[in-house]
């Protein structure tokens, strides 16, 4: 494992300090680095709070700022943050209009946010939760953990963030978040594994000609391992899984998010954009909005995920609404 770091134990703290220094106009760290918060809060606005294990940068702290999150709680690499962090974040950014917790569907994240929510509610606050589960590589199910929340989470954060900025009430934002999640599907493919710094060796191994199809954002194995295929064939399988599950009517407009996992050059991501938009067109869908970049990453893993969100006019407007965060700005 080759890393630009000083020590495994201080990696996260040092990185957070760098983030805070570089974006002091937008965000600041909470005490003991328990959370990253917006510099300036809007009284009367519902507070949007997310969080999760580190290693997915810029998710979530990079999405703190006007038009998106009010606070993000960073856990250790690939490990959910803890309820004390979330409670501290809630206390720091709740201006009285309530808090919406946006949580990726991993038992760790869900349970820790749940405990935090219980503590905040016991403290007299109003808290609602949206759990994202956009990863179609895992079958949906009510009797098991079900689908993982992956890159689609950023779409939920952006769209709900825009609506929150317009002072929509808590329940409406929760419902909007669930609607966006319902309209969103993702699928990932890894060409190389990632290495958790504390573990020091790759989470899995792939032969030089293999890829992991349906990989999760922690390098969790996916649907199957197979021979490395062409970009077109990979995009075909990814969008096949996404669109079959999304079942959007032909003629639908959508957002296409091609997301790099950390070790994949932008040149390849744009090539995947090109492949994806042709396949979408072939299925009678039009990508009317695009986002391309390494935004929901898995440390140094090579590969990418594709996310499709079925848009309507309202969601498109909210997507286009201004945003000013460390990682997204328009």
């Amino acid at each position: 494992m080759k890393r630009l770091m000083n020590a495994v134990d201080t990696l996260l703290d040092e990185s957070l300090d760098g983030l805070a220094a570089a974006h002091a106009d937008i965000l600041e760290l909470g005490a003991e680095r328990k959370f990253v918060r917006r510099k300036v809060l809007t009284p009367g606005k519902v507070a949007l709070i997310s969080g999760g294990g580190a290693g997915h940068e810029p998710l979530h702290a990079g999405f703190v700022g006007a038009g998106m999150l009010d606070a993000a709680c960073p856990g250790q690499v690939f490990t959910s943050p803890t309820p004390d962090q979330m409670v501290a974040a809630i206390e720091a950014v709740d201006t009285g209009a309530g808090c919406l917790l946006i949580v990726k569907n991993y038992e760790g994240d869900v349970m820790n946010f749940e405990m935090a929510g219980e503590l905040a509610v016991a403290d007299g606050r109003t808290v609602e939760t949206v759990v994202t589960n956009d990863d179609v590589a895992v079958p949906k199910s009510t009797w098991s953990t079900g689908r993982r929340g992956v890159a689609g989470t950023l779409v939920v954060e952006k769209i709900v963030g825009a609506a929150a900025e317009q002072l929509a009430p808590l329940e409406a934002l929760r419902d909007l978040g669930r609607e966006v999640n319902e309209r969103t599907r993702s699928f990932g493919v890894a060409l190389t594994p990632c290495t958790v710094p504390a573990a020091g060796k790759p989470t899995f191994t792939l032969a030089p000609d293999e890829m992991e199809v349906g990989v999760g954002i922690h390098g969790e194995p996916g649907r199957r391992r197979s021979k490395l295929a062409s970009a077109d064939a990979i995009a075909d399988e990814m969008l096949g899984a996404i669109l079959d599950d999304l079942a959007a009517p032909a003629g639908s407009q959508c957002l296409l998010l091609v997301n790099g996992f950390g070790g994949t050059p932008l040149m390849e991501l744009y090539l995947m954009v090109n492949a994806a938009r042709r396949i979408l067109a072939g299925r009678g869908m039009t990508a009317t909005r695009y986002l391309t970049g390494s935004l929901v990453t898995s440390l140094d893993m090579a590969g990418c995920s594709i996310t499709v969100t079925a848009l309507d006019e309202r969601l498109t407007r909210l997507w286009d609404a201004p945003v000013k965060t460390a990682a997204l700005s328009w």
Partner: protein
Amino acid sequence: MTPEHLHKLIVAVADAVIAHADELTELDQAIGDGDHGVNMRRGFEAVRADAAATAEKPLPDALKAIGTQLVMKVGGASGPLYGTLFLALGKTIAPDASNIAAAFAAAVQAVEARGKSHPGQKTLLDVLAPVQAALADGGPHLPARLPIVAAAAADATVPMLATRGRASFLGERSIGHMDPGARSSALMIASLCRALEELDLG
């Protein structure tokens, strides 16, 4: 139970978890995200550091203090689950531990509620539940028998299909590996029972 006794028990469990952290991480690399040992070590290093102060408290408060530390330090799925286990234990146990079987049953219930899970899903509950059953059945030599129950229960997770936790994302590919949380539960129970035997309080 004197503070010295309680201290020994806390340290025994913490040391066992810390000593086996790499093994837990390796199990989690196979069917999870490779951090279970790292998470548990972080939590139990905190527990160990505070062990002297914790041991001074009455048993219920000591268990709650440990539960809070685990919730705050472990993170991941195992943090809230083990945290809930100790918090719930602390809530129901008598200061003299006389109702241990009932308290443990209530604590396992609390873990199930927190995890929205039940035994048979290839999780730490697949060790906690049979241990709870054996404890409820009672009988002689419990500190000698429970580790055997726990170890067998952990082994029994190997052929299971995971339907909770990260391993569930693997579907069929989760079969053939021991659940890391089951292993950490078995470890904690074994180290606790061994320490109890050494203290001859069993």
